[in-house]
């Protein structure tokens, strides 16, 4: 976008707008605008997605976490590794666009995904969708007030590898 004060005298609006930036409220313009905006993300998903993978080489269970929960989740995976359990960690740094391709790839190699999150289970549904039935998806919800303890997650990892 050009900078203001450079003599272009452009207009910017938050309303549905055409290629000149002028409001133009109709179904056709709305369709073009929304597709253009969403495609900016969709078509560049590979450049935008950020994940942090650890201990993935021989993992049979992968803990998929995001936000504050991932601090606990990664530690729980560390504790499990000390016990010799084959578990990996996929920390989602960006949530949209969702790392569909990577999760689908991993689903073909592992036994299950474990998704701890501070809600009644939201991202676990996305994970389950991307897994496409190739492996199990286990939700580990926590209702908030504080975060999961590493022991909570470790206990669930132990169950999952059985």
């Amino acid at each position, binding site marked *: 976008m050009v900078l*203001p*004060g450079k003599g272009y*005298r452009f*207009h*910017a*609006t938050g309303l549905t707008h055409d290629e000149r930036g*002028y*409001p133009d409220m109709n179904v056709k313009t709305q369709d073009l605008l929304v597709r253009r905006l969403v495609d900016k993300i969709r078509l560049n998903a590979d450049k935008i997605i950020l994940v942090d993978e650890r201990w993935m080489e021989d993992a049979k269970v992968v803990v998929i976490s995001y936000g504050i929960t991932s601090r606990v989740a990664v530690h729980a995976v560390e504790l499990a590794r000390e016990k010799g359990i084959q578990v990996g960690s996929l920390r989602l740094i960006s949530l949209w666009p969702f790392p569909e391709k990577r999760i689908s790839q991993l689903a073909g190699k592992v036994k299950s995904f474990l998704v701890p999150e501070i809600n009644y289970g939201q991202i676990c549904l996305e994970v389950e969708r991307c897994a496409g039935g190739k492996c199990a998806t286990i939700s580990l919800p926590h209702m908030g007030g504080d975060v999961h303890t590493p022991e909570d997650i470790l206990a669930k990892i132990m169950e999952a590898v059985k």
Partner: protein
Amino acid sequence: MNVAQEEHPIAPYLRMDRMPHMWCPSCGIGIVLKCFATALEKTKMDLDKVSVVSGIGCTGRTAGYVRLDSFHTTHGRAIPFATGLKLARPDLKVVVFSGDGDLLAIGGNHFIHAAKRNMDLTVILVNNFIYGMTGGQLAPTTPTSANTSTTPYGNFETPFSVPKLAEACGATYVARWTCLDVRRVTRAMQDALQRKGFSIVEVIAPCPVLYARRNKLGAGLEMLQYYKEKCEICHEAGTENLEIAFQDKIPVGKFVDKPRPTFQESMHEWYRSRLGDKYKTIE
């Protein structure tokens, strides 16, 4: 040349490819826009360095019609957007052009803080006593007893007095006129554009379709007649007693013109005194 073919005097200030505008017949916003264009012309400002920021609502559409760098932002957020623009581009003259609902209700906190900081912004507040675009709901400026779609038995609340609020918060230039008085509105806008700091011009304008119709006040012309009969110029009145009661007198004038250091001036001076040469800035 045929008059119909002549270019309108303020056409160079407008995006003529967007005409006709969307305002209702006998709405006052067009008059305020004409005054603004005339004020720009008279102050001979470099138009490449003037930016108009508006929020949402009928007056908010002004940004889309001026041929300047213009931003039609989200509801109530014209002042924060303008603040960011002014901080990043201090060389620009940033004008906030929006309505009473947008600036005083949804954006009320931004308004009081920008005035408190003395942000170098010129605010043109078009006050039509009601929310027009969304269907005639009660606004923070609706006079007591007036009928709106959300107060069908009349409004029992006390409205904001814009000049009193602005002065109390720290505005350095405060004027109020009605859109009947185009020359005074224009002159007030010229003053405000030439002042440094938080300057505000409140312009009372008719909303014939919602405010006037709901209250059986006639059309825009009758509203202008009301302004003509009930306006009282009282420059020296102070901002204490400037409330507008329903269809009662409208105190107008220039109430505050009292410079003080702007946010940016104070900030630079403060950090220079604390940090010396370590302080680097854009000016």
